[in-house]
């Protein structure tokens, strides 16, 4: 196959994906507009319980992203410099081989009141009563960071590996210490990776369901879990649909500044 035929064949799967995405979002907006109308949104957004869920979703997503970036950068830097990079990389992505439910349930075992951590702390006499972590937003945060960290590491790693090592050497021979060279050369040049990884983690953690469900319990919900509950426990599809739209808007609002930042960084790097 050549020319347009080949291009069509290559783009067909992507076209299907895009069509599926556009249709599902359009369907969501349509059913929300016809079934609930504006009134439902007013009701939802003046419900203090829902506002708390909304706020919790935002801060957990932002905190997860920040934690992933802070933990992921040194890890990615280490991987980029390590001669046995592929081995370490395997370790970083190995959690992907295990179902997210299983991985998250591991934290239940670790963090519960009678879990490994609390038992150990009590046995060593460091605490008297168990520290309540499981079924709090903190457990959700820990779980989400664990699940999404590999995405951040890989995004940052790829931009570090794209960098020419001679640039760092140029920084050194021009008089920069290791730290100065990192701050003025390596870090700014890897920002596209950090921003890209952050967008990814932010979107995924804002819409997370499994981890907040298992580790946050039913009291400290996020938007994803709230929607899940409305659908499978209360069977209120109107509310679920409206909340899905709210989640969509929240995700867009959260990611927009990152996309702007990324565009700016890229323009600066590529000199368009």
């Amino acid at each position, binding site marked *: 196959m050549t020319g347009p035929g080949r291009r069509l064949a290559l783009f067909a799967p992507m076209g299907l994906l895009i069509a599926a995405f556009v249709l599902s979002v359009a369907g969501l907006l349509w059913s929300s507009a016809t079934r609930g109308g504006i009134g439902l949104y007013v009701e939802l957004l003046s419900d203090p319980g829902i506002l708390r869920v909304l706020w919790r979703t935002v801060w957990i997503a932002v905190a997860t992203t920040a934690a992933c970036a802070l933990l992921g950068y040194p890890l990615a830097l280490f991987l980029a410099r390590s001669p046995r990079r592929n081995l370490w990389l395997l370790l970083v992505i190995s959690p992907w081989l295990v179902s997210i439910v299983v991985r998250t349930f591991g934290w239940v075992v670790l963090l519960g009141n009678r879990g490994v951590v609390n038992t150990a702390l009590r046995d060593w006499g460091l605490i008297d009563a168990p520290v309540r972590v499981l079924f709090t937003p903190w457990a959700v945060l820990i779980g989400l960071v664990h699940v999404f960290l590999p995405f951040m590491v890989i995004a940052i790693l790829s931009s570090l590996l794209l960098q020419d090592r001679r640039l760092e050497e140029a920084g050194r021979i021009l008089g920069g210490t290791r730290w100065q060279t990192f701050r003025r050369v390596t870090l700014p040049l890897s920002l596209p990776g950090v921003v890209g990884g952050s967008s990814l983690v932010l979107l995924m953690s804002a819409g997370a369901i499994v981890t907040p469900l298992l580790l946050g319990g039913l009291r400290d919900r996020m938007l994803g879990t709230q929607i899940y509950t409305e659908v499978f426990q209360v069977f209120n599809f109107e509310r679920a649909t409206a909340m899905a739209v709210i989640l969509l808007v929240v995700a867009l609002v959260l990611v927009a500044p990152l996309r702007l930042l990324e565009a700016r960084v890229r323009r600066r*790097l590529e000199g368009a």
Partner: protein
Amino acid sequence: MPRSGSVGHLEIDSVSRSFGSLRAVNAVSLDIAAGEFIAFLGPSGCGKTTLLRIIAGFEAADSGRLTLDGRVLAGLPPNRRDVGMVFQNLALFPHLTVAENVAFGLELRRKGTAEIARQVEEALALVALDGLAGRRIQQLSGGQRQRVALARALVLHPAVLLLDEPLSALDLKLRRQLQGELKALQRRTGTTFVFVTHDQEEALSMADRVAVFNRGGLEQFDTPQALYGRPATRFVAEFVGDANIRSAAQLAPLGLSLPAGSLLVIRPEDCVVGTAAAAAPVRIDGVVEAVDFVGPHARLRVAPDGMPAGTTEPWLALLPGAALDGLAPGARATLGFDPARAAQLPASQIRGGA
């Protein structure tokens, strides 16, 4: 801009460096005077870059000693060696403008803003890039990038500037132009230049002295004239310019006697062909094999008589184009030379080469 005359004296004392079983740099010693323009010349993979990276501090030597103006360099990180470098791929910072690239090292030295601006301007003027301070690197041509890399290194007034094949990516015309500019820049700043190249013409035309390397070892370190006129080894004789290299046994039938084991190096331009050969002290009869006419001169290959085909070593001659006069492939010709103008390689010094 010139520094005081005594800055930039680099001593390399039997420095070696291996990668696994490969001797990339093998006991190299060089004494480079302040303000000299030195070329490192050698075929690909002979260790030029490795030695340069050892001087810069990116690689450690396994053994040997490096001093710069008496200061021992071992253990000093690259940022504290007072050495500048222009990388083969230039390694300009893509996230900075031309002026920001040049200011990079000055900012690390915590100079004042006004002082930095003044020095950046001066450095850009030095390399004739005055109007381009605000440009991004991606918006520059190859030759302009080259100059930014030079300005970025020179603005810090390093004691020694290392240049790793800085012109190899450029087309021939730009290359010639920048060779001239580089040479002029080196004279003006008085900085010691160590210039890596595998282009012998570039090395000979630019450098005060040339270090020829082969397989990690130093073959000869001398002025261009000495390198060409009195090569110390067979490798140098063959690598620097063309040469007819003949053993004592090969020359005996011509009535020339050499000490056993030594070689004679006869440059093609010292050979004459045709009627002019009648007066030459040594003459060889043969058949013209090939003629390359390149305008001002012509390169001639002459196969001598009396040897079975395949074992004959043809003679190379370089004639003025006008002297060609009817010599075409297949024609009989006499080639002559004066052994007094040829260089002799004593048996003890014949290393490297074929």
